[in-house]
């Protein structure tokens, strides 16, 4: 990082921020009075279901979409203030579903993107970084989904950006391809880069992000580190079970250690603090009501459970 950029960082407290941000498309409000602040060097996640306004927020920060109202500042600059091209030299973007030119090879594609930037990394080094060395001379049209996403990441990283925006970088990838991309993002972080990403995978947010804003209907409904957000649930375990027949739910809430009960179509999710007390008590209650248990699982509370407790809906089907 140059000394010039370092001095900007001293004056500018946030890598990216927005105040009172709103965006409407006709009658639909995609983003509703949003305040965010992304710190230098952190990985900031926008987590939420499809249609929560994550992509719109990201594209406003990237300067690709103009907000209906509100202010945006990226690396100390505002979009449309005459310094856009300068700002674009310093940030990089991976869009949700860009289909790069199919007829170009991996190497040609990365070189093309490199040519747009005054400063940047050697294309071959970046191709090596995303582990596409062997595919360097392969045409984009012949790559797998995971390879294409890594190529898209290479096109973003080749500019050696200070700030990297990733819109659902691993959507549609198999677990192994996702893991490889996570490694690339983590290594970029280690080198001092700042990342803003959107995702609807809680495990992605938990693994990559220092801080997360959970979004729903264009608003931030929770903000903090993954550990903080889970701690705010005031529970460390989730007990999920399914029964045959009917159950009187009022008996469940009064069980020891149970904080919260969520029921839907014969499936129940209990938020519990002390699993050692809660589980025997639950089994006793089910026996008392003569209800037949079909399945029962317990797991550590996750961001998914945070979302469920905040909205009453599951993240993936909200």
């Amino acid at each position, binding site marked *: *990082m140059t000394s010039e950029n370092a001095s900007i960082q001293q004056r500018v407290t946030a890598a990216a921020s927005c105040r009172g941000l709103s965006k409407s498309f006709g009658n639909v409000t995609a983003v509703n009075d949003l305040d965010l602040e992304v710190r230098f060097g952190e990985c900031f996640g926008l987590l939420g279901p499809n249609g929560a306004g994550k992509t719109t927020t990201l594209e406003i920060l*990237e*300067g*690709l979409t103009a907000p209906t109202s509100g202010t945006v500042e990226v690396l100390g600059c505002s979009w449309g203030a005459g310094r856009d*091209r*300068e700002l*674009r*030299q310093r940030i990089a*973007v991976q*869009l949700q*579903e*860009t*289909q*790069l*030119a199919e*007829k*170009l090879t991996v190497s*040609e594609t990365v*070189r*093309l*993107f*490199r*040519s*747009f*930037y*005054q*400063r*940047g*990394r*050697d294309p*071959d*080094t970046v191709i*090596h*970084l995303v*582990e596409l*060395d062997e595919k*360097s001379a392969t*045409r984009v049209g012949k790559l797998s989904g995971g390879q294409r996403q890594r190529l898209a990441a290479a*096109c973003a990283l080749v*500019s*050696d950006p200070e700030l990297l925006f990733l819109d659902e970088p691993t959507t549609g990838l198999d677990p192994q391809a996702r893991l490889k991309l996570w*490694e*690339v993002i983590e*290594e*970029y972080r*280690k*080198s*001092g*880069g700042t990342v803003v990403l959107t995702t609807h995978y809680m495990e992605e947010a938990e693994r990559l992000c220092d801080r997360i804003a959970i979004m729903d209907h264009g608003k931030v409904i929770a903000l903090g580190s993954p550990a903080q957000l889970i701690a705010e649930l005031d529970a460390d375990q989730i007990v999920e079970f399914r029964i045959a027949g009917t159950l009187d739910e009022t008996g469940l809430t009064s069980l020891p250690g149970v904080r919260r009960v969520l029921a839907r179509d014969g499936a129940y999710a209990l938020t519990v603090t002390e699993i050692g007390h809660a589980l025997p008590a639950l089994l006793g209650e089910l026996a008392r009501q003569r209800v037949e248990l079909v399945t029962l699982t317990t797991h550590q509370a996750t961001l998914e459970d945070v979302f469920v407790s905040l909205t009453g809906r599951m993240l993936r089907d909200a």
Partner: protein
Amino acid sequence: MPDEKTETTASGDIGSSLSRKAEAPESARSISGHPLVQLTLTRLREFLREPEAVFWVFIFPVLLACALGIAFRNTAPEKIRIAIEDDGRDSKLITELAASLARSRDVTPVVFDPVAAARALRTGNVALVVRRADSDSAARPEHAEAGVTHNSNPIAAAYPPLVFRYDPTRPESRTARLAIDDALRRANGLVDGVNIREQTVTEPGARYIDFLIPGLIGLNLMGSGMWGVGFAIVSARSRKLLKRFAATPMRRSHYLLSFMFSRLVFLALEVAALVVFARLAFGVVVRGAHIDLALCAVAGALTFSGLGLFVASRARTVEGVSGLMNFVMLPMWLLSGTFFSAARFPALLQPFIKVLPLTALNDVLRAVINDGVSLSTQWPQVIILLSWGLISFAVALRIFRWQ
């Protein structure tokens, strides 16, 4: 594999290679690293790796020139087939007529029985049927019956009355009628008093193929300019590639200019392919200066890529832009004098036809290739052409949709 690889760590530990301080910024970039060069290279690669595009731009025009050139080639003027109807009444007359007409330069006589002769005339196999008149119909001139004319001139002395049966709306048939008349006069020593010396124009430069080739060059410049630019832009837009580019510091003018530059590269090849082919296959010569031809072609290519850019500036789908392209190009295919002279259209349409860019381009190309005049004399057409290009490029830049 490039040398830089050896500096980086094994693939399992990709960490150290990512250090953002590891590489010094490239202050002086080579020309090959210039965005305009890279974008133009991208255009060229994408085009050359699309076999269909190569076919339509390079092979198709040559095939078209070939097909049309052969269909309309000027060999010895073809003789028109006519039929002599043999109804069995007067075989001597039939033989005499056949012998007289066979000496004609313009017609080939065949002898048919009445049924075959009628069928041959109906199907266009012969242009005219000559038969001996029935004695009663010979008595009165028959203008009431359309298409049937009686022979009533001095050669009546040599032959019994004849009937020429033909369709007067067929130019070939009218020609045949005059040719037979002429042949029969000559056969009987009757020659016109006017002394006529013939001068034929079948030398290179005045044939149909000479007219056609400049038109095909113009048509090809239009087609490849508009499709080449339009399709590439709209497909990039529909795949969000334009949006991705808009997120980089790439200059938008560089992106649009790369289309112009790549057109210039292919232009040289596609015009050369047609000119060389026409020269070798049909002996079509460029009478004007080659530099003038090159300048016209450049003007045409830039104009039509500007127009292609304009047509593609808003469309979101490839289907949408295809419709727009056809809407813009079809009138010019028909009206701009590619396959036949635009002068054939009514005077009312002429001012409109004259200002079409393809008309202007075709006129300039014909002036340079066929008439061999200097490009500088063609400035009105050149101005029309370049105005289209500049205006559409400027408007395209303003209204262009990047997302």
